[in-house]
């Protein structure tokens, strides 16, 4: 408990400092807030977010239905393919698109690219929920006189909606916080404006005010998402295994249309970005690719992200364990506090840590430590999610039994819950590591002078239009990020129906908990 409080306090530190700073600025903060440009920024951001969310839903819903409820051919491969867009950081996709169409810019371009990169946040939980639904409920509805369409409307959609909505909110959070894509397509949404005013002037009050405003918007989304998650109990007690919902048989035409749709999505979300990068690589063969710089960037990415993941796990484990085992207002607000980082855009954390280090520990300004701390604040929620799911999947009675058999509280936890949950917790750490490697804005702001990561290299090359030189970095980023997406796709294909729904965290990127056959499999 104490450890969890400390962890949350540490995670909240940057945001608190940012607030203090803005409040301390007084009048100049007010005038920064009431500029007409501020309103423009708010509106641009909201429109962008809405476009991305709508786009993601249009891409995800038919895809999920085809892959979960029909006998579409090649379902397994497509399940994996449809998870892979998550592996394409949207600024890498943006670079890839703009390398083909150098004239691309504006809000629609940004929304299209982001929707293509984020729709799996919606489709993956939808597939899991649709496949996990027990046939019993739908059969009951049929027997009560509902036609197939009415069953979809009154049973399937209401049951699937929370998962879809939680996914859509993740998409919204992603798009509100995304910096690279917005900057590449020159959309004046919050992140770009904040970064620009941070770079442009030594009076950084405007940047801070905008950052606070962005945080407010993001927190509203986080709150909405938390409501969607509901308070469903996360482990199963004693129920038998359900039967999977039946698959619809597609007609010949349905198959052609369905396959056509999946191929189109694959083309736009994967083939175009990868093809573009591949083409740039081939073309740039003639010029020299700086192998030394590439190796340095890889080393930079790995070292900073590993450090960040370690710090994130240290912060996440106490909170995740607490959240899995206890409810109540106290724990819920602590957990909500920990999830702040999940809504905090990288640009905000970067900015606040710049302020914080300069004011409190100038020695830490633009050091690896500050960068790792930023990663931990930003991505610890992913590790919290993984920890909570893994721990919640272990029946608490196991710990009780271990204690009654003579083990102290910590020893009992370690030999039962900890032992069973650690693969999930470790996966959470790995997830933080891989996510941190893709981080761009906070890295740009906090990295030590001369320190390069894959993301910063890609950014600086793209900024100057050196698409060929950027290609190796883009490819390396995708390769790194493909690992968790690939694992998740594989996991989805292996899912046994019926045991699924409770393992799907609202944060769909968190990895399933236990592979050991747990209490659910009893005769």
């Amino acid at each position: 408990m104490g450890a969890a409080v400390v962890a949350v306090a540490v995670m909240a530190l940057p945001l608190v400092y940012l607030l203090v700073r803005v409040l301390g600025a007084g009048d100049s903060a007010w005038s920064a807030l009431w500029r007409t440009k501020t309103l423009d920024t708010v509106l641009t951001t909201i429109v962008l977010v809405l476009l991305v969310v709508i786009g993601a839903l249009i891409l995800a819903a038919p895809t999920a239905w085809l892959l979960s409820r029909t006998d579409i051919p090649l379902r397994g491969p497509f399940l994996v393919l449809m998870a892979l867009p998550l592996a394409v950081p949207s600024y890498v996709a943006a670079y890839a698109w703009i390398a083909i169409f150098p004239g691309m810019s504006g809000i629609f371009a940004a929304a299209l690219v982001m929707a293509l990169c984020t729709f799996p946040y919606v489709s993956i939980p939808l597939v899991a929920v649709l496949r996990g639904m027990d046939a019993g409920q739908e059969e009951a509805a049929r027997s009560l006189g509902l036609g197939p369409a009415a069953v979809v409307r009154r049973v399937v959609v209401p049951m699937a909606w929370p998962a879809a909505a939680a996914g859509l909110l993740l998409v919204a959070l992603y798009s509100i916080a995304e910096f690279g894509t917005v900057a590449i397509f020159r959309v004046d949404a919050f992140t770009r404006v904040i970064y620009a005013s941070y770079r442009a002037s030594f009076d950084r009050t405007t940047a801070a005010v905008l950052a606070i405003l962005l945080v407010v918007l993001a927190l509203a989304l986080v709150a909405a998402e938390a409501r969607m998650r509901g308070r469903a109990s996360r482990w199963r007690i004693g129920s038998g295994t359900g039967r999977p919902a039946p698959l619809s048989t597609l007609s010949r035409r349905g198959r052609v249309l369905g396959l056509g749709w999946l191929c189109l999505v694959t083309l736009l979300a994967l083939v175009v970005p990868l093809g573009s990068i591949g083409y740039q690589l081939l073309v740039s063969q003639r010029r020299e690719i700086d192998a030394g710089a590439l190796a340095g960037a890889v080393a930079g990415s790995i070292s900073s992200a590993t450090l960040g993941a370690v710090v994130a796990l240290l912060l996440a484990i106490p909170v995740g364990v607490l959240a899995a085992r206890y409810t109540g207002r106290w724990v819920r607000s602590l957990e909500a506090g920990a999830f702040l980082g999940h809504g905090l855009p990288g640009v905000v954390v970067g900015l606040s840590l710049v302020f914080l280090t300069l004011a409190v520990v100038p020695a830490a300004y633009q050091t690896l430590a500050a960068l790792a701390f930023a990663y931990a604040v930003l991505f610890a929620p992913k590790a919290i999610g993984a920890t909570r799911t893994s721990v919640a999947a272990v029946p608490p009675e196991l710990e009780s039994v271990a204690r009654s058999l003579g083990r102290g509280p910590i020893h009992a936890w370690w030999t039962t819950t900890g032992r069973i949950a650690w693969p999930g917790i470790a996966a959470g750490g790995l997830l933080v590591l891989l996510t941190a490697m893709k981080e761009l804005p906070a890295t740009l702001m906090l990295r030590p002078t001369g320190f390069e990561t894959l993301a910063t290299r890609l950014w600086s090359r793209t900024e100057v239009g050196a698409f060929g030189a950027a290609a190796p970095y883009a490819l390396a980023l995708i390769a790194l990020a493909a690992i968790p997406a690939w694992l998740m796709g594989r996991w989805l294909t292996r899912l046994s129906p019926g045991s699924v729904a409770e393992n799907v965290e609202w944060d769909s990127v968190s990895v399933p908990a236990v592979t050991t056959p747990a209490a659910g499999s009893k005769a």
Partner: protein
Amino acid sequence: MTSVRVTDLVVGYGGPPVVREATCSVGSGSLLAVVGASGSGKTTLLRAIAGFVPVTSGTISFDSELVTGPGVSVPPERRRVGIVTQDGSLFPHLSVERNIAFGLPRRELPDGTPTVQRVAELLDLVGLTGLGARAPHELSGGQQQRVALARALAPGPDVVLLDEPFSALDAGLRTSLGHEVRDLLRSTSTTAILVTHDQSEALSLADSVAVMVQGRIVQQGAPVDVYGHPTSLDAASFLGEVVLLPVLGREGDRVITALGALAAGDVGGGEQVVLRPEQVSVIAAAPGSDGRGSVVAVSYHGHDSLVDVRLDDGNLVRARVLGSSGMSTGDRVDVGLVG
């Protein structure tokens, strides 16, 4: 060999109390069944005895040692209790052997017995010889419960707490395993508390039965006494079918009812007496006689039948007859008392 005494125990999880001033006790080496409807607080009582939930007030002592009380709370790992839960709660990541050995020292027991030998003994004891290397999910539900019991017994606990251990099993297995477990506990002289919502399980297995209603123990005693002489309608109706008859008068320690006089515990302010259907006899009215009432319902259960009779004075009584009653609704009958 330890006796357990719970006195005026109150447990609330920060809200209204779930257990309210519950008092019960179990003698050394005997089996107490706490029986009650779901939500009556019996599992919470058990968890309090095991030391898993903080109590608001009241005391729990093992023999003369206070384990829960004002300023005293012995942690679960030092109480020497074994617990068996509804689904066994076997550790899914450990083999059967390692589950059983979980509470034992790694190599050998304090008396020098190798741990592996003790585990083998326990496997024999619960009838699972040779299954030690299996993973828990490879066992049937009944086998899992046997392992859970062996695991609980392994460290030689003072008290074993069983939380509805048979309720997840099918009916036939439930009865046979129940008796097996009872005999096992008896042979090892282990004090045990069994929580169940199944009154026949409680009555048939336990040395002593405590009836729990809304957080209180309303009655505790030997199964025969609690069933035959309930002190409250709650206790009476939870343990089986009841027949309520108005008391017409008294004759020493016998009460007089419309069906005759009998020695019975009375509940409801002395105005009513509680009977069991097997204490009521029903026969077809003799030819020429009009009988004392008419049959309003008959339900057949195989080994017995329940016959509901509306007496001519308006009272409704229920009688149990062995096998089929041969009666049907509307028949005129004579009703009397047995014994």
